[in-house]
């Protein structure tokens, strides 16, 4: 004979079975994924502390404004944030934790080394990884089925960057004869060095690279590096930096009275960061970065710029736009796939991500799509020159806000 619970209509046996099922689900299973009405849980993995904290925090702003901006567009996302502490080992463990905490997709992780660590975990767990910023070619060359990158590879960055350098020389009628390459010896810096070494002979550049100088990304002083670069007598400084080393490098150039024809980055951050403008003022003007840039006229850019202004009224959007834009676009890519998939489960999400064709976005260039390796191969670069301490598009001509200035004026001639 069974005892019945009259008010809810459950037998003691049924109640016991339900309890066991709930316990088993809690202990071993994942929460079921429902698309309708539910938000996509996105684990955002960024170096918010450690030596890459400045860039990680800038990217985090993109993640922080994403739920509101994307909510207005009909996407429901919930952000779970994790700090990699600028370490690949921590990135690996935080990725595990984000997935265990219920993240359906991982977005991150700004740095190639940390992204590589996260990619291994995502591949093992079958969870999609949408990279916001990470350039090392190898990330989409491992045969992984779960990685998607809406960011140029080092090869793309350097190819586009060098092509734009030629356009710059043509537009200004000034061509350097020699260049020195200064770069950090981390994954990103070395990937750029490798790409430059491989591509330079093929691109028929009008100058020679006389020396490559690698430095520790955590270096507190670049006086020796700049002394060494100056001693080469090179006309042009090609740099792969982040904000802290860009500041130290330009400061040393001024102190050592080294006035190359220009400082050009083939696609690294640092020279156009808000922090760099604040620290160097007029001395960082005329430095050039060739990289993918946001379209100021795009509707999404305007929405994001307004949301940024609302949340960070004391900061200029331009100084954070690159990091914010790529992070927000990565979240948008995941949200869009979720909407089309109708489920946050791994397989439908991966399938939907492969079929991405996103036209409404922030960065210039055609719609976001991914090739079989998960790489968006359609990303274009622009020549962005610092003018009046503001990143300004100077090439290609059809997108230019001002004409390029090259060679750059000497340090003493700046006002």
């Amino acid at each position, binding site marked *: 004979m069974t005892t019945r619970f009259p008010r809810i209509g459950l037998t003691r046996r049924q109640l016991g079975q339900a309890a066991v099922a709930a316990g088993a689900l809690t202990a071993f299973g994942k929460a079921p994924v429902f698309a309708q009405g539910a938000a996509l849980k996105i684990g955002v993995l960024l170096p*918010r*502390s*450690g*030596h890459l*904290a*400045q860039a*990680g*925090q800038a990217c985090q702003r993109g993640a922080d404004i994403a739920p509101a901006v994307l909510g207005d567009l009909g996407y429901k996302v919930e952000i779970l944030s994790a700090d990699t502490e*600028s370490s690949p080992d921590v990135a690996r463990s935080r990725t595990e934790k984000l997935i265990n905490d219920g993240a359906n997709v991982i977005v991150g992780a700004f740095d190639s080394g940390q992204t590589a660590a996260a990619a291994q975990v995502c591949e093992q767990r079958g969870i999609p990884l949408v990279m916001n910023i990470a350039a090392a070619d190898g990330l989409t060359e491992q045969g992984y089925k779960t990685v998607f990158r809406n960011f140029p590879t080092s090869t793309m960055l350097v190819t586009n960057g060098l092509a734009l350098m030629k356009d710059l020389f043509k537009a200004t009628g000034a061509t350097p004869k020699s260049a020195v390459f200064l770069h950090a*010896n981390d994954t990103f810096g070395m990937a750029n060095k490798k790409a430059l070494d491989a591509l330079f002979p093929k691109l028929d550049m009008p100058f020679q690279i006389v020396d490559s*100088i*690698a*430095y*520790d990304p*955590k*270096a*507190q*002083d*670049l*006086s*020796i*590096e700049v*002394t*060494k670069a100056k*001693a080469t007598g090179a006309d042009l400084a090609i740099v792969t930096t982040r*904000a*802290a080393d860009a*500041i*130290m490098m330009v*400061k040393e150039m*001024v*102190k*050592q*009275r080294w006035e190359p024809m220009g400082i050009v980055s083939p696609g690294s951050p640092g020279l156009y960061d*808000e*922090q760099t403008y*604040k*620290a160097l*003022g007029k*001395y960082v003007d005329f430095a050039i970065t060739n990289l993918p840039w946001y379209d100021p006229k795009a509707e999404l850019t305007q929405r994001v710029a307004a949301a940024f202004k609302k949340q960070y009224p004391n900061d200029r959007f331009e100084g954070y736009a690159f990091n914010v834009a790529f992070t927000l676009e990565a979240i948008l890519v995941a949200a869009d796939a979720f909407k089309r998939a109708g489920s946050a489960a791994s397989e439908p999400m991966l399938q939907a991500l492969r079929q991405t064709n996103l036209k409404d976005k922030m960065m210039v260039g055609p719609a976001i799509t991914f090739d079989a390796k998960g790489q968006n191969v359609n990303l274009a670069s622009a020549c962005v020159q610092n003018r009046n301490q503001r990143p300004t598009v100077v090439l290609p001509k059809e997108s230019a806000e001002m004409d390029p200035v090259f060679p750059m004026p000497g*340090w003493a001639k700046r006002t």
Partner: protein
Amino acid sequence: MTLALLLNIVASGLLTGLVYGLAALGLSVIFGVVRVVNFAHGEMMVAGMYGAVLLFGALGLDPILSAPLVAAVLFVFGWALQRGLVNKFVERPEHMQFILLLGIATIVLNLLLMVFGPDSRGVMVPYVFDVFEIGPFHQDATRTYAGLGAIAVAAVLFAFFRFSRTGKAIRACADNPLGARVVGLNIDGLYALTFGIGAAVVGIAGALLTLVVEARPQLAPEYTLLSFIIVIVGGLGSLPGALLGGVLIGVSEALAGFLLMPSLKALFSYVVLIVVLLLRPQGLLGRRS
């Protein structure tokens, strides 16, 4: 490569090394007397850097002038830390002291990150881009002032320990704590004073360093490690040793960076450390225990 270029690089390394040495002096003072290893050393130094940055932003005070104010604040912090917390651990096993100081380091680091954020902040003193040029020899003004400031502070510190009654009493505590207690010295008070002096020296080093390096919270663990290397190279507890260790590391990093490869600079500090540990384990000016 010309001789002038080489001299410039050695001078640059020497001046940077003097500031490194000053920073390590604070660590050496505290360890030499209290026998507690301050794992929050780098964090205190970065706090000193931010103090100088704040005073520059609010009052336009040059870091050389604000260094005494920063030192005063850090003295109080160090004194209170020793009195309120560290003193309870002086007699406890070393691993407990390590955990305590590591905990304090973590708290200070994260407080700095929360308050100031991850962006670097510098001081734009009027002479930030000035250079002293004598013929082919040139050296930037900020590094020169920071190096000279380090020499001045080190000289005051040496004079204090050598000639003042309090300095002698502190040395007595370091040499023989029991004997010092027997003759009536207030050991706890002197320990707190020493911790305060060590923290103040670190604060001055931090303030001077803002002339050369932008303040960022993430510098803290780097400077803790660097100061440890310098103190071990110079000799644990030896004040001249800390200064010598700083200069040695500064010059060797500069030369290695130029003659070998810049990315080997940090590695070279460890090479110097290993060589010293192999040939003279007590450090260059340390005493064999």
